[in-house]
């Protein structure tokens, strides 16, 4: 799938901080989001994820660089694509004094979506029961659900979700994950920024990682994880030292780590069991250790904490 849902080139944005110092928050960002599938946008607090999402929605004007969304230049051709995008950026922002239903009805009216669609999306996010309450009385998770419902009104080709699971209960997190998968399976593109790496690992097809306003990694999730090295095998036995020696004797690289034997580039677990049994050691536990998104993320973003608390000159330079 070569088509790109989002294509950012040389995107730059800085904010003026009093008195008159410009603090760059996005620095020459090139980002590709392939059409179809779930794309996770990762990065530490303040790395510029929300700013980037706002730029591709035309809410924030970049200083330089180009934005193309669904093949159209933004913000110039925004009217041509705005009907194909659904987005919640940062906190869900509906009118607090109006009910969830009224908010959605107003948006539906503005977007020329039939009013019947409002009930459908309310059902889809499980908010039908509380739809008549003013949004100001919603819990955080309910606001989040209402905002996600808003993004779905127009059956968008591109769904942009900024920390959608923030404040959701476990059922809600599960529902949002399933929703993202469902949208992707329908051929839509979901661009999601989140810190819930465990959830993203289950659902994302592609990822990009920002650190201090720059791209530090981008690609398929599988490739990213594979690049972190092959899986390893952890074996717990009564005598790890002797076990490591025995395994090394078979040409496997094994070492003791924290009271267990870790075999890198491991052979099938059954072979390991057999060799250990041969020397009278019986494994109490055999675990395949795969590189996960969290470890990959931590390695990629090491040293680029929240940009705001660091000297701007030093960040990412």
């Amino acid at each position: 799938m070569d088509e790109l849902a989002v294509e950012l080139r040389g995107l730059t944005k800085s904010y003026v901080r009093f008195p008159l110092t410009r603090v760059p928050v996005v620095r020459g960002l090139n980002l590709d989001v392939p059409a179809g599938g779930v794309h996770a946008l990762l990065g530490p607090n303040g790395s510029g994820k929300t700013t980037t999402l706002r730029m591709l929605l035309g809410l924030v004007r970049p200083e330089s660089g180009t934005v193309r969304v669904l093949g159209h230049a933004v913000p110039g051709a925004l009217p041509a694509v705005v009907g194909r995008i659904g987005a919640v950026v940062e906190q869900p922002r509906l009118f607090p004094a109006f009910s969830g239903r009224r908010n959605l009805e107003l948006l539906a009216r503005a977007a020329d979506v039939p009013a019947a669609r409002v009930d459908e999306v309310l059902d889809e996010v499980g908010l039908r029961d509380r739809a008549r309450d003013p949004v100001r009385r919603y819990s955080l998770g309910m606001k989040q659900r209402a905002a996600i419902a808003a993004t779905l009104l127009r059956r968008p080709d591109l769904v942009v979700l900024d920390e959608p699971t923030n404040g959701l209960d476990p059922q809600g997190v599960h529902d949002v994950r399933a929703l993202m998968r469902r949208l992707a399976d329908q051929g839509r593109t979901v661009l999601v920024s989140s810190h819930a790496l465990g959830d993203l690992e289950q659902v994302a097809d592609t990822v990009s990682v920002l650190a201090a306003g720059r791209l530090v990694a981008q690609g398929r999730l599988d490739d990213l994880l594979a690049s972190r090295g092959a899986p390893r095998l952890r074996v717990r036995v009564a005598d790890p030292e002797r076990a490591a020696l025995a395994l090394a004797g078979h040409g496997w690289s094994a070492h003791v780590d924290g009271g267990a034997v870790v075999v890198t580039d491991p052979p099938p677990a059954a072979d390991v069991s057999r060799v250990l049994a041969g020397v009278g050691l019986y494994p109490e536990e055999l675990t395949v250790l795969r590189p996960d998104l969290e470890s990959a993320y931590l390695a990629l973003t090491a040293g680029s904490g929240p940009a705001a608390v660091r000297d701007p000159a030093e960040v990412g330079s």
Partner: protein
Amino acid sequence: MSGVLRAELVRLRVRRFTWLVLVVVAAVSASVAVYAWREARTPTPAEVAAAHESYQQDRAAWLDGGRDDCEKRNRDMKAKGFEPFDCDLFAPELENYVPYEPTWDDDGMPYLGSLASPVVIGALLLGASLVTAEFGAGSMGLWLTFVAPRGRAFRAKVAAAGVGGALVGLLGALVGAGGTLAAFAVLHRLHGNGWAASGVAGRLAVLGALAAVVGAGLGFALRHVAAVMGIALWWVLSVEVVAPLAWARARPLTLGLNVRAWVEGSAPYTVPQWVADPQLTGGGSVQDVEHVVRGLQGGLVLAVVAAVVAVAGLVVFRVRDVS
């Protein structure tokens, strides 16, 4: 009508603030009408009879020595070298005794001008808050992911604000002008052209619409209702009040005068000017010369101001980031 405008009108209708403004404007306009009811009262037959009676008494006293006293004092004054005066001026006249009978044209219509202030303030607040509430709640960002380009969102909001402002003006006219007209019609024979009130109603509606557009434009430019109020207050104090003191010729540009001209049909103002005296070559004096702002001129000035503020709001809205 586009879906966006319909959505904005629904929002205008369901906002509590809209209703609050309408209630307050109606209440203030009602107080104008109440005042008019008091002023429009026709003298009762008893009052008229009493007036006739005291006239007769004074007249009798005047004829019975009062006039002679006056002539005598006149002669004394003349002896001291003062100009004599006409004693007939002091003779009691019936018209000075009978209580004044107010007429719609002279006493009713001028009240309607005082409806302009509540309408302008109410409509300005209505327009400003319609826009700033959305920035305040942060929902402008969400809205703009539904409506593009920004000019389209802007137009719908300003149009909705204008509709709201026109309603404020109509309500003010209905309660204030309607009440005043009723006062004169019920308590009194109308003595004048009652239809003129409908013209005032139309002009108040236009005034309300323009004020709401100004409010919305300022809302887009400043994003906080407090900032809008601050600017409006600054304008009134410095430009409307102080500037004409320093430069009298700026008076026809003050909004207060133009609002009055628009609502009342015309508004006079004076400018101190050098007036040559034909009897003295090269001589003359500085006198307050009266000028008039005509109704249409006032309306035009207000429309231009509303357009300028709206364009400024649009320009700021188009370039500034929305979060």
